[in-house]
């Protein structure tokens, strides 16, 4: 139980169980997903021919904002119950806590994406003209890119003024290369132009994920103890 992976698993299952018990969180997620897609449909006409070109960007911007909503409450429960102080004095490696939070957020955001995607497909009559299976690594790598940095910056923003605005302020600039890759990959796959390939973007996303996951794991202990 005191192994790092053991701690990660325990923390993760605890978080999932807590979220599942409070069904209002799930219901508000559902409604939020629907609202986002409807608002975007009003803002960007889904019937126009160009919608296929911009759909890649639309979808990821919607996911990004949904992720920020999820990330902002990452540490809320921990702060309310002074759990972080307990973690600081315990011999448990801080990485285990970080990984649990990041994976928990990943699942949370993935569920949101899973709810929004069919709505987007319906409203925008989306159809992938390129290799659709490539969308899966793009979705996984892209979501992890947002979530891993988001969880880290959420921890950094804990003691700052205007905590909720600080998270997107810190997250968005750093995520730009990942965001560009996600959007370009998705657009390439949707448009299905045979001269283009999403492979470069997928590799770039994977590199981004490796670099920043390493960075977060290396620096989380420092950030946790700095609070």
């Amino acid at each position, binding site marked *: 139980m005191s192994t790092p992976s053991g701690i990660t698993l325990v923390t993760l299952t605890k978080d999932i169980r807590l979220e599942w018990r409070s069904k209002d969180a799930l219901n508000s997620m559902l409604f939020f997903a629907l609202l986002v897609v409807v608002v975007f449909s009003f803002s960007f006409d889904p019937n126009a021919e160009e919608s296929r070109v911009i759909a890649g960007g639309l979808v990821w911007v919607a996911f990004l904002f949904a992720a920020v909503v999820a990330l902002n409450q990452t540490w809320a429960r921990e702060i309310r119950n002074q759990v972080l102080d307990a973690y600081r004095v315990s011999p448990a490696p801080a990485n285990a806590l970080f990984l649990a939070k990041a994976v928990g957020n990943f699942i949370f955001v993935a569920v949101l994406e899973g709810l929004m995607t069919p709505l987007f497909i319906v409203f925008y009559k989306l159809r992938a003209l390129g290799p659709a299976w490539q969308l899966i690594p793009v979705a996984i790598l892209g979501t992890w890119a947002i979530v891993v*940095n988001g969880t880290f910056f959420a921890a*950094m923003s804990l*003691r*700052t*003024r*205007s905590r909720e605005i*600080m998270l997107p*302020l*810190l997250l*968005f*600039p*750093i995520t*730009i*290369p*990942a965001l*560009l*890759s996600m959007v*370009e990959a998705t657009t390439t796959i949707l448009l299905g132009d045979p001269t*283009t390939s999403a492979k*470069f*973007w997928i590799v*770039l996303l994977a*590199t*981004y994920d490796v*670099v*920043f996951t390493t*960075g977060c794991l290396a*620096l989380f202990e*420092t*950030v946790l103890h*700095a*609070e």
Partner: protein
Amino acid sequence: MKKAFPFLGLLTAVLLSYALYQALVVAPQEQTMGDVQRIFYYHVPSAWTAFLLFAINFLASILYLVRRNPKTDQIANWVVIGLAVLTCAGAYAFRGYLPADVYPSSVATTGIVIAGLYFLIRKFFSEQGTDILALTTAEVGVVFCTVVLVTGPLWARPVWGIWWTWDIRLTSTLVLWLIYVSYLVLRRFSSSGETPVLAAALAVFGALDVPLVYFSIWFFRTQHPQPVIGGGGSIDPRMLRVLLVNWLAFLCFAALVCWSRYRLERMQRDVEETQALEALLEPGGRVR
């Protein structure tokens, strides 16, 4: 040291005036763009200065994080030396893989200069000094970066008719600017106990991001070609001379501005410390 300041200030002013004269009068007029091209002599040195300042910020941030623990300090020293050696060896061993206009000697020199800067900062700045250095170079870097982002569109508009294009250099500079502005916002909004550590962590993340930003925009641009602001290709040696003179002038200017900002911050912290001590020692236990 302090007495040298007005003298150096005057020297810098003279240098800047000379550089301005060179840029406006002496430099030959460009064939296709005309006089507007002279913006180049302010745009490019500002960019190089900003990048240098951000590089120093990166080194200072790493130093701050690493020096909190004597063990990591030792390891970091060896890592820096090792990386410098690897860069030199690699530049010559893999010279075939380098892009056309990049020489192995410049890569090797850059590696040695960066390692040298690391050890210079380590020697001359205390732990708190390193943190102040990071803050200073970030602020002044953002100022120079703002200049780049303002002069770029002012150059693009008359030449290409558009204010902005997602050209690789300007876009990378914009993202860099965004990252460092967020760094400064974090510095301002977080409570002073843990700010240096958090800011240093953010600076490291920002630096890790830079190559990724560059590659992503580079590939994006090959997919969607756009005009290149800032001119590529070879440069007339007379223009190069004017460019370097302007860069030298701006470097001196940047050094003076950083020095002033550094002194201001140091004084600020001393005052805060004194006020805190006074509050503790106040008779009757009144807290300010």
